[in-house]
């Protein structure tokens, strides 16, 4: 809660703030939750004045209800569905990434998380002509691969360069710089990053677990608090700025050997949609195939545990696409 300061609301002058401090009332929270009558006696202020102050403060710090109809209006006008560019993934995600939501990809090493992120970034920046913020915490981003993916979309060098310029990359390797970056994005950086009006429509964090997991599990619970901070700011980015947030997570094995997303139960509430990526065959780690299977493990739209297979080669396929799908993407946005 906010510290009480003179001039915050009518009637709260310097003398009163001092008196309140003397009565151990420092923040708005303290004032609101205290017994006004008792306080009025202690500080020798009129009950009425304190009551008025409290009402104003409550009004200032409350959240306002919004009617469902208004919300629906807003939803229709502001929500976009950003196609991932891959038909199987789109099918799994109910036609793509929704703005205003956090979508999570989890999977073991080499399961294709980063590849999907690259593909999404390229698709959004080239096909949908929107800016993308790409936060790379593992050093896994290679612009060459992005270019490679773009080359399968178009052979026009100028268009490739334009699309690359719409992808903004941050390389951050610890949680505090990640938080710094996310907060500065919230306070205007998101608009700054985009070119030609509007704000960036997609924020990709690859990977969120790389910076959080070193902090978890020690005796101090600071890590947990920081994790929730990251979650909160990502949600704000998604909701208030209407961006589609895509994060990646690693996996752990439960006692029975089952694969599940990392970062524990607290984190599992954060993403709206979770997708688990695995290598398609159950075979050895030595097998090499670019086919991956994606399982939906949490979603508010589709039945869970539906499974789709897709090929990582999709993004480096040769130019064979019929134009029908492209049109669909554009109407979606």
């Amino acid at each position, binding site marked *: 809660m906010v510290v009480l300061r003179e001039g915050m609301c009518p009637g709260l002058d310097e003398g009163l703030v001092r008196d309140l401090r003397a009565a151990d009332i420092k923040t708005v929270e303290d004032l609101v939750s205290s017994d006004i009558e008792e306080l009025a006696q202690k500080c020798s202020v009129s009950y009425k004045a304190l009551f008025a102050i409290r009402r104003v403060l409550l009004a200032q710090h409350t959240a306002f209800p919004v009617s469902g109809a208004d919300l629906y209006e807003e939803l229709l006008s502001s929500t976009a569905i950003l196609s991932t560019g891959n038909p199987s993934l789109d099918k799994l995600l109910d036609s793509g990434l929704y703005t205003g939501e956090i979508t999570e990809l989890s999977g073991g090493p080499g399961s294709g998380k980063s590849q999907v992120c690259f593909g999404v970034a390229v698709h959004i920046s080239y096909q949908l002509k929107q800016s993308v913020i790409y936060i790379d915490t593992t050093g896994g981003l290679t612009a060459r691969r992005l270019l490679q993916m773009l080359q399968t979309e178009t052979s026009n060098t100028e268009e490739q360069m334009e699309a690359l*310029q719409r992808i903004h990359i941050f390389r951050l390797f610890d949680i505090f710089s990640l938080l710094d970056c996310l907060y500065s994005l919230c306070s205007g950086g998101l608009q700054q990053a985009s070119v030609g009006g509007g704000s960036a429509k997609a924020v990709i964090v690859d990977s969120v677990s*790389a910076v959080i997991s070193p902090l978890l599990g020690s005796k101090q619970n600071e890590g947990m608090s920081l994790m929730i901070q990251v979650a909160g700011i990502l949600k704000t980015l998604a909701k208030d700025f209407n961006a589609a947030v895509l994060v990646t997570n690693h996996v752990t094995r439960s006692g029975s050997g089952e694969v599940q997303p990392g970062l524990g139960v607290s984190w599992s509430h954060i993403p709206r949609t979770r997708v688990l990526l695995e290598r398609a065959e159950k075979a050895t780690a030595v097998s090499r195939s670019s086919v991956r299977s994606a399982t939906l493990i949490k979603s508010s739209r589709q039945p869970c545990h539906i499974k789709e297979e897709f090929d990582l080669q999709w993004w480096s396929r040769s130019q064979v696409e019929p134009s029908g799908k492209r049109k669909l993407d554009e109407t979606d946005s």
Partner: protein
Amino acid sequence: MQRAVSSLSFSPSVKVKLVSAGFQFTSDLLHLEPLQLSKEAGLSQQEALEVLQTVTRAGEGVSASLTALELLQKEEETRSIVTFSSQLDAALGGGFPIGKITEICGVPGVGKTQLCLQLAVDVQVPQCFGGVGGQVMYIDTEGSFLLERVIDMATAAVRHCSLLVEDDEQRVAMTTFTVETILSDIFLVRCNDYMELLAELHLLPDFLLNHPRVRLLVIDSVAFPFRQFDDLSQRTRLLQGLAQQLVAMAYRHHVAVVITNHMTTRLQGSQSQLVPALGENWGHAPTTRLLLQWAGSQRLAAILKSPGHVDTTIQYQISSDGFRDADQSELPQNKRPRTHANQSAASQPDS
């Protein structure tokens, strides 16, 4: 959007003091004087000053970002470290990438250390010969650094380059590219346990600042100090932290980080399979994962994980000169799988 004080990098005790004094958001701190803050929150003046400085810095805005185009240009400018095995170079897109972490895993005796030693020599190949002309920091945790082999490889590398000399620039470069200079540009650190390794990695950024020519950091191996560990969750945490340190170091100081890892057996039901050690989480740390393995009497190198390349398998051999391509004329029966691998690499434009 208000930023909570607890999201800044203060020590926990400072955070507790700030929050209990009512300062929950950075906006509460913005217009305070250090003296006032130290009185109100019960901090020392030094602490209060640091808090306020951090707050203003955090409020200043956007950290540096670059567009993918700028990154692409940077990547094009950066050379990779060649391995002297043209097939492996091709599979990796020109060699071991600078600024990234590459892990080499494999069973004992398959050539992990040999490849590391080869890289330690190769990184010093002068720029006019297509190398990067850098120095190398070699952290040896297993005691497997073999000076004799380095001398063999260095001799072979010098001989190879001297055969290539064509112009004056290269002739001049050859005068400083000798076995002695190669050896003197290898900084070797022997770490006996994980504490020494962690401590060394903490000191390394300073070392790299003082030695700006270092282009390669080898840790052979990262697995050995961590194999004997009772507290597995602590091990995971340490390793995750170490991974982030390495990523940051590779990026900031522009070095290629090459680490080696052991293999271990994982039981799944009644089946067992050989997987890289240190657990699944560690697998996210390296950007590229290279698996060296035996197939009969041949040695194969396979890319297990890479964000920029397709999974390929190539064949190599270890000769007295070092890590080289498998001799094609001697092994004609293996031609088929190899050309196949080459084709799939070639189908990736610009890999």
